[in-house]
């Protein structure tokens, strides 16, 4: 969609293109985070603080979300994307997934902050990205993802809509790749519970309040869920929720940062792109004019999924 954003003096780029190229500019940094030695024991690990500096004694599963960033960089055909079609980039995406698979605890959970954390957040988000990577690149899992799905289905995070939505997306994607209706049904129940709560409260719950930044993550993950599951009702509700969200987004891409329950200032744009909402142009303008928080301004931990969301805007 045309966004009216002048990022190039010769032609006007559309908003999704602007965001995608901002994400592509983060790929070199992400590649540097990853162990790319195929002979190494930690090949595919993207937690440089673990495999290279050895500052950390165990890897953070969320760094393996680089898998989807690499996969999308490999697939995104654009004259300004030097990573498109490069087999090494595809290999690094797969290596990140394989290392993620080896990180799984025996119960299917993953750790982020400490050993045996069994983090719902890390499990839901890392699974969503890793399984999507396999689907994007037409690869099969090398481990039993049903254990991960079962763990996600039997656990929940009622205080954080964004984590619940990621779990719905992960369950739907695991259902697709494992060919199992059971996980698809679990995903549907998780999404239904989210919508019921959102209808009752009037917002997506983030630790007892509303947060625009995390609402955008919730809507992005729900969009991933809706696409994987074919849930047309969720897709329609996402569009309504996006319309409401976009009323908060100013022409320069900013919103009122005060009064957010988790004090966020970022905005994940994929749901706007998926809904064809004009506010996507405002976000692209904010990126171009350096007026909003964008992936390059975040630390390694948060840059990765944020850049993935920017690249999602150009599909697939």
């Amino acid at each position: 969609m045309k966004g009216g954003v002048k990022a190039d003096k010769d032609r006007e780029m559309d908003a999704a293109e602007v965001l995608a190229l901002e994400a592509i500019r983060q790929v070199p940094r992400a590649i540097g985070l990853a162990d790319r030695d195929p002979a190494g024991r930690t090949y595919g690990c993207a937690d440089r603080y673990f495999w290279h500096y050895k500052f950390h004694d165990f890897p953070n599963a969320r760094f393996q979300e680089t898998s989807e960033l690499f996969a999308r960089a490999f697939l995104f055909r654009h004259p300004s994307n030097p990573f498109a079609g490069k087999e090494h980039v595809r290999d690094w995406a797969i290596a990140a997934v394989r290392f993620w698979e080896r990180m799984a605890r025996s119960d299917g959970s993953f750790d982020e902050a400490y050993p045996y954390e069994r983090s719902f957040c890390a499990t839901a988000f890392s699974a969503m990205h890793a399984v999507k990577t396999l689907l994007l690149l037409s690869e099969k899992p090398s481990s039993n993802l049903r254990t991960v799905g079962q763990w996600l289905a039997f656990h929940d995070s009622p205080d954080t809509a964004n984590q619940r939505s990621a779990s719905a997306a992960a369950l739907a994607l695991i259902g697709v790749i494992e060919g199992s209706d059971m996980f698809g049904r679990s995903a549907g129940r998780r999404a239904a519970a989210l919508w019921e709560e959102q209808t009752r409260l009037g917002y997506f719950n983030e630790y007892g309040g509303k947060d625009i930044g995390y609402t955008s993550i919730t809507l992005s993950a729900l969009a991933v869920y809706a696409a994987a599951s074919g849930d047309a009702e969720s897709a329609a509700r996402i569009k309504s929720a996006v319309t409401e969200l976009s009323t908060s987004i100013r022409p320069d891409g900013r919103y009122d940062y005060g009064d957010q329950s988790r004090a966020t200032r970022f905005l994940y744009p994929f749901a706007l792109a998926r809904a064809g909402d004009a506010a996507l142009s405002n976000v692209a303008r904010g990126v171009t004019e350096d007026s909003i928080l964008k992936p390059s301004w975040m630390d390694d931990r948060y840059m990765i999924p944020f850049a993935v969301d920017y690249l999602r805007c150009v599909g697939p």
Partner: protein
Amino acid sequence: MTPIRLVLFRLFLIFWGWIPPVGVWLHKILVSLFVKRSRSPYGASSRFYTPEDLT
């Protein structure tokens, strides 16, 4: 309930996760005491720079 049945019943509850084994409880206690992040996840993604910080 006889003592052996009580032991078997407790094993049954542990197996189904209704009574966590001592090791799991000890892990939870140690985590809440020593892992600061476990007590404050709310603002993890806050405090990144935006131009508003210059005003």
